[in-house]
């Protein structure tokens, strides 16, 4: 990935770091995206299995579905009707209710927070379209608009989103399994090392093919909605 280090050319970076930070109020900390049920089902129970979860479930979903849709949204960010169509299409791709609703909840929270710090018509127009029922407000669409508004390059927007998904999973794992901070960092490092390959592969995914085959994670997310005890919303 080429990085322009000329003075002033990374003016977008501080803003991207601010909005990618866990401090930014998206509410993502309340979601495990299926991990809680994967723990309940015995699949994830230690550092090694957390690493397998990140590389076998989270990264493939990023590669073939989330990152391609983020790219499509970034590319059509200035075309509101195309963005709304994409948002509705993504809604149909997320079959588990919790996964679908988590994406919308976090997207709406991000959009709301962005509107308090950024004054761009892209964000306001999308928020108005959601209010009219023309879109749901999925997280990748909010992230794409955020990146466009910050004038961040696509590659940086993709990296920030993917890292956020991985770190969110690891943060949830801290509360769900017997693992320490160092174990979490080792598992995260292992997944992060595979991120460049995942990003490159995601750039080759056409819209007609974007989607994921992850039945165990999908089933876990579906079952989590019916769980009698749980720490996380999803």
């Amino acid at each position, binding site marked *: 990935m080429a990085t322009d280090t000329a003075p002033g050319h990374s003016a977008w970076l501080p803003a991207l770091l601010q909005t990618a930070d866990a401090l930014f109020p998206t509410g993502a900390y309340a979601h495990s995206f299926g991990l809680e049920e994967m723990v309940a*089902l*015995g*699949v994830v129970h230690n550092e090694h299995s957390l690493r*397998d*979860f990140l*590389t*076998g*479930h989270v*990264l*493939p*979903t990023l590669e*073939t579905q989330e990152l391609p849709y983020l790219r499509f949204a970034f590319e059509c960010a200035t075309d509101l009707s195309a963005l709304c169509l994409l948002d*509705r*299409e993504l*809604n*149909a*791709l997320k*079959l*588990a*209710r*919790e996964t*679908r609703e988590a994406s919308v909840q976090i997207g709406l929270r991000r959009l709301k927070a962005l509107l308090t710090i950024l004054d761009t018509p892209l964000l306001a127009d999308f928020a108005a379209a959601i209010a009219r029922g023309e879109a749901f407000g999925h997280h990748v669409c909010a992230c794409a608009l955020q990146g466009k508004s910050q004038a961040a390059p696509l590659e940086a927007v993709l990296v920030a989103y993917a890292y956020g998904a991985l770190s969110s999973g690891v943060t949830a794992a801290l509360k769900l399994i017997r693992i320490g901070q160092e174990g979490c960092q080792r598992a995260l490092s292992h997944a992060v090392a595979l991120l460049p390959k995942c990003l490159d592969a995601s750039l080759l995914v*056409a*819209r*007609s*093919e*974007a*989607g*994921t*085959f*992850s*039945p*165990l994670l*999908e*089933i*876990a*997310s*579906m*079952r989590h*909605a*019916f769980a009698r005890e749980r720490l996380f919303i999803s």
Partner: protein
Amino acid sequence: MSEDASSGGFPESEGQGIRGHLRLVCGPDSRGLPSLREQSFRAPIHLSKPHLDAGTLVVNVVNPTAGLLQDDRIHQDVRVQPGASLLLTSPSASRAHRVRTGWAEVSQQFHVAAGAALEVLPETFIPQAGASYKQSTRAVVESGGTLLLFETLSPGRVASGESFEYTRLDWRTDVLLDQNHLLRERYCIRPASGEVQALRRTFPSAYYGSAVVVCPALCAQSACWEQVLALHSPESWLGVSPLSHPSAWTVKWVCNDAPLLRSLQHGVRTALYAAIGRTAPDLRRVSGR
């Protein structure tokens, strides 16, 4: 965007396979019973004589050949008119065989009118070693229509020691309720991929099943989902979720062997039929499942 025209990354082939088709229109006859108003099919598709059961016309779609071979293309277009109920099933598993290049492909369109019902219940799909296969399904249900769409996928000829030895499966499914896009699935399954390896860590011989049900009677249902969820066990995972409309739900299951796959499908089908207030038509098979 035309999704059917592209090779989708599959290597192109210049060979000529079979170009088969099935076109059916099912509507009520003068007595109000479902009947085939129009039918057209071409090899390798053949239809058995339909029979009525529980007010539903049961049509068995037969492929008398060994299965789908390189460059075979099958198109199915099935429409059910108001007041009619149709079950489209098959008497045996469908197979995709090894290809040297290219792929085999089935595209299918279903249309269910308001007041009509369609169940699509094919036998398990078995992709053999070296198979490359594409399947696209588009189902449009008008408000007031009922659709049950089942699908089961084997990892291969497991009894012959062949599991996950196919080359690639490309699965595309869209379900719409009027203009509302309820479900979009895009799978590109390659046995060597990370997600298949992750699946096999828990289920080494993963058999996969799914059901989509769209029915206005489901809006107020909730008890049936507990019944469906009770089919879950450590040996057979099962999940259920509403789609983006309260009358549309999906069920997914994964297990390690074919009998369990069939048993789960039977359990899901039984619960769904009870929930929508209809009697499941008898398939007239020895196992009854």
